[in-house]
């Protein structure tokens, strides 16, 4: 039995997902939007990027279903639950999570990375790992063979699942298997999706099969599996990217349109506000705000039941602070566009009918800005994921107990200075973040092309 825990960030994330689903349903009925999204759906690169993004989102969502496990009942007491808050992803990866080593070990190693004085010996040796390669026993000669077997087994598993998915899809759509792999089949770039899915599934298969016996990306200073850390970091990155835009967007849209349409002192005030905000060095401002939040959190320990809630509060605070400091760019863009739209004749026609200011902004200005909002939204996402890494590296980012790409890179700073060098946690964080940001950027590019009125014919 478990006790579900809904952290604030989980709730917001699921609200966000619900809003996106609702918007999708609404957009399907809007001709212009449907046409633009249809262009995105037909774009092979965009759909390949979307597939990668979807995998990341799936991992992030699994990591957002939190619970507290029930402790073994003791007679005479009510049910008690563990202090530790885990997620569905933790449960799936419990092998990785629990099989901690003593300290650093290289990817796929069987021995620790540091020499230790062994029991019953005067020599310092590389001790065997407790879990990595433990199934091999004392005979290490067939480690390469074992790895090869596991890799091929993983590949085969991935291939089988991919073939199953592909045939299922073709059965549903009534297509030939090979025909469906062509870009554009079935009205979408389903071919691109399946071609992207193949390497993803192969990598998953290999990771699962190897992860059963080894630490695929090695372990960190305290012996945690780096693959596990990387997967846990995805949720942090996604949350920062999405929740921050959620905070930023309403402010940016409202202030941008108000400044552009109302003009006069309102415009002066808003312009003054964002000019001032954007002239303060960003990292400095964020650092100051984060440190203030930190003091508030530290002085009110009674607000938080578990340490996970505390870390979550700090994450949300970071999103809020990032959002409050990063709306200026989008607001400036929207103000300029509104200034242009305000002079268009359809706005004047509405004024001639005596339509109210806010009705004009809602009916005539906002819909004509939506493409810019959408483009800004997807373009900002990758920037924010990177911003989190930078801030955590500087030390003003997420809570140290929160696993994120930024904290991984921060610890890697020391590891790279070691002799011999520990390179794998940096490489793992880099690889995952690179894939996430590249996919987001490619997708954003396609969205921009599809929604940019100048590029559409």
């Amino acid at each position: 039995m478990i006790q579900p825990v809904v952290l604030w960030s989980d709730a917001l994330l699921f609200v966000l997902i619900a809003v996106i689903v609702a918007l999708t349903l609404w957009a399907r009925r809007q001709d212009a939007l449907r046409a633009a999204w249809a262009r995105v759906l037909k774009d092979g690169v965009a759909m390949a990027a979307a597939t990668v993004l979807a995998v990341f989102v799936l991992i992030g969502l699994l990591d957002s279903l939190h619970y507290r496990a029930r402790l073994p009942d003791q007679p005479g007491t009510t049910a008690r639950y563990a202090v530790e808050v885990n997620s569905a992803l933790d449960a799936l990866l419990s092998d990785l999570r629990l099989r901690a080593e003593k300290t650093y070990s290289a990817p796929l190693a069987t021995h620790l990375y540091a020499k230790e004085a062994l029991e019953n010996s005067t020599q310092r040796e590389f001790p065997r790992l407790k879990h990595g390669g433990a199934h091999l026993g004392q005979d290490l000669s067939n480690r390469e063979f074992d790895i090869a077997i596991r890799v091929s087994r993983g590949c085969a598993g991935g291939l089988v699942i991919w073939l199953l998915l592909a045939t299922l899809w073709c059965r549903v759509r009534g297509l030939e298997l090979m025909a469906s792999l062509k870009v554009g089949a079935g009205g979408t770039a389903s071919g691109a999706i399946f071609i992207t899915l193949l390497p993803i599934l192969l990598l998953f298969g290999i990771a699962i099969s190897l992860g059963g016996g080894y630490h695929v990306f090695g372990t960190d200073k305290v012996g945690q599996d780096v693959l596990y850390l990387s997967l846990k970091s995805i949720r942090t990155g996604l949350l920062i990217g999405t929740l921050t835009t959620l905070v930023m967007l309403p402010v940016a849209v409202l202030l941008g349109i108000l400044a552009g349409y109302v003009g006069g002192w309102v415009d002066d005030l808003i312009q003054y506000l964002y000019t001032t905000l954007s002239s303060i060095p960003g990292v400095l401002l964020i650092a100051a705000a984060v440190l203030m939040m930190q003091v508030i959190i530290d002085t009110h320990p009674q607000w938080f039941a578990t340490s996970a809630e505390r870390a979550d509060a700090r994450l949300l605070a970071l999103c809020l602070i990032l959002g409050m400091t990063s709306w200026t760019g989008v607001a400036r863009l929207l103000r300029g566009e509104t200034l242009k739209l305000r002079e268009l004749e359809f706005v004047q026609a509405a004024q001639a009918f005596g339509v109210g200011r806010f009705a004009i902004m809602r009916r005539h200005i906002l819909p004509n800005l939506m493409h810019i909002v959408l483009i800004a939204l997807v373009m900002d996402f990758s920037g924010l994921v990177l911003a989190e890494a930078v801030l955590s590296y500087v030390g003003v980012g997420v809570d140290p107990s929160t696993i994120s790409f930024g904290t991984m890179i921060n610890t890697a700073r020391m590891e790279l200075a070691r002799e011999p060098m520990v390179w794998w946690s940096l490489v793992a964080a880099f690889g995952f973040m690179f894939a996430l940001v590249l996919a987001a950027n490619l997708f954003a590019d396609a969205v921009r092309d599809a929604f940019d009125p100048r590029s559409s014919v």
Partner: protein
Amino acid sequence: MSILAVKDLAIHIGAARPVDGISFDIAAGECYALLGESGCGKSMTALGIMRLLPAAAQVTGGAVGFEGGDLLALPESGMRDIRGGGIGMIFQEPATSLNPVLTVGRQISEALELHTALRGAAARARAAELLDQVGIPDPLRRLDEYPFQLSGGLRQRVMIACALAGEPRLLIADEPTTALDVTIQAQVLDLLDELRRKQGMALFLITHDLGVVARMADRVGVMYAGQLVEEAPREAFFAQPAHPYSVRLFAALPDAERRGGRLATIPGSVPAADVRHEGCRFVERCSEVMPECRSAPPSWRDVDGGQRVRCFLPGAAPAVAAEVGAGDTAMAAGSTPLLEVKDLQVHFPIRRGILQRAVGAVRAVDGMSLRLMPGRTLALVGESGCGKTTAGKAMLQLLRPTAGSVQLDGVELTTRSSNELRPLRAKMQMVFQDPFASLNPRLRIGDIIAEGMQALKVGAGDAAAKVGPLLEQVGLRADMVTRYPHEFSGGQRQRIAIARALAVNPQLLVCDEPTSALDVSVQAQILNLLSDLQRDLKLAYLFITHNIAVVDYLAHDVAVMYLGRVVERGTAEEVLRQPRHPYTKALLAAVPRVDGARSEVPKLAGDMPSPANPPAGCHFHPRCPLADESCRRAYPAETLFSATHAVRCIKAV
């Protein structure tokens, strides 16, 4: 000996064929005019000759012979010598065809250095000479000025000077005067004509304006849907156009003789460039269709005197009989005025310095008075920048006037707050100039038309039910309500804009150049619609325009504006037939006439002064041929020539 010989030139953009086999010759020193509506492929032809086509477009066939060589076979480096050196080109929009960050002198010298051996001081001297040649006063000073310091007319002259720098033997002018006012247009056309005669330069003129063709051309080619349909010497073409399309273009022109009647229109619009044609391209819009028109494309047939036509009709196409209208639509004058404007002023402050203090004002409208009777049409005429659009918006309180009074049906508007104005907004509406900017692209037609009814609570609740009949009233189908604006052509969009204004049952419609963005045949449809609506609904129009022919056809009263003030007003008959003010006379004389006749009135020199700094005394005196010392002293009072005809000029007789 022809200097340019285009043979079967075809240009494709994907599946579209904007130019589909066009052939013509231009002799040295000749002016050849290519005439046609927008979307016919005129500009594409010019760009194809210069090999400046957009990346998506491709020349798929034909040959362009220039002085004996084939331009299409030249390497790009050879083509660069031809551009500017052999063939010069000037574009439609003088505001965007000069580089804003380079001085005029630099831009002309650039062309000189490319095509002549002149450098440094010699190039500068030659540039000054060129500016002098295109009639720019004080050329040495102008050389160091930037394009933004020049007016539209001067910019177009600089553009011509640039094009002349390489001493081209052929000048391609793509709608060179469309963006200019009539008085400036007359100056530029005179200049082009003079240059052509002096230098023996051939001129390839692309235009949609029959008046410009009559003024300039030696020969005329009429283009329709990517092909030439008629080619003729100017005299023959204007004496008797042979193709039914040409005949209809003439019949669609508004003028005084068709007053009260209906203009002939060409139903439908130019077919899209990706349509495949079995027979004649004009067949869907032609009233003389014969069975063979649909089966095979007509080939060239000589009429006589060098005139040839692509049409199966033997002889010339019959003239279009003008439909007889219901007579003059005006209600009797003498009732109380619907709109009365007194001393209206709209000033825009010029702010300078850190504290943004007003240091002066642009006097866009500076004390204008006029009155409009119910059911009549008052035309507000003037060059661009004279404040006519600002005045129109200020009357509707879309811009708040600085001073003066505007009374609608006896109710003062200027003192009311925007909430108090709302109930009055239903009485007055506006139709805008650009049908592409005046409809919100994200709203359906039904929502666009219903917006006013909902905002003003007209037609209580059943707004949606009224949209269908409104669409039918303006000649569209009721089932179009669910479509979006981008699915409509320019003329249809203007109809939608009119329906939107009509939805709230206005008595006054301010029409701000409603036809200036439309082709002649579509303009005729809109003008017919407006006069039908006036007859049926007793609407009063304030018609803001610079097109004198439209005024002559439509207006009952005319007010001529110059620099924010009305300089002459009266009935259309009085103002257009017996103009008293020298500005009115010059404005009327500058309009190129279809019959090619030139008037004796001297053309206006120079440009309109800036409304931020109007001349002392009579605003018009710096450009006026009659001005003397007394004109500089005070702004002239109104002189009445009849009960309705008033002129602000001390020299008017």
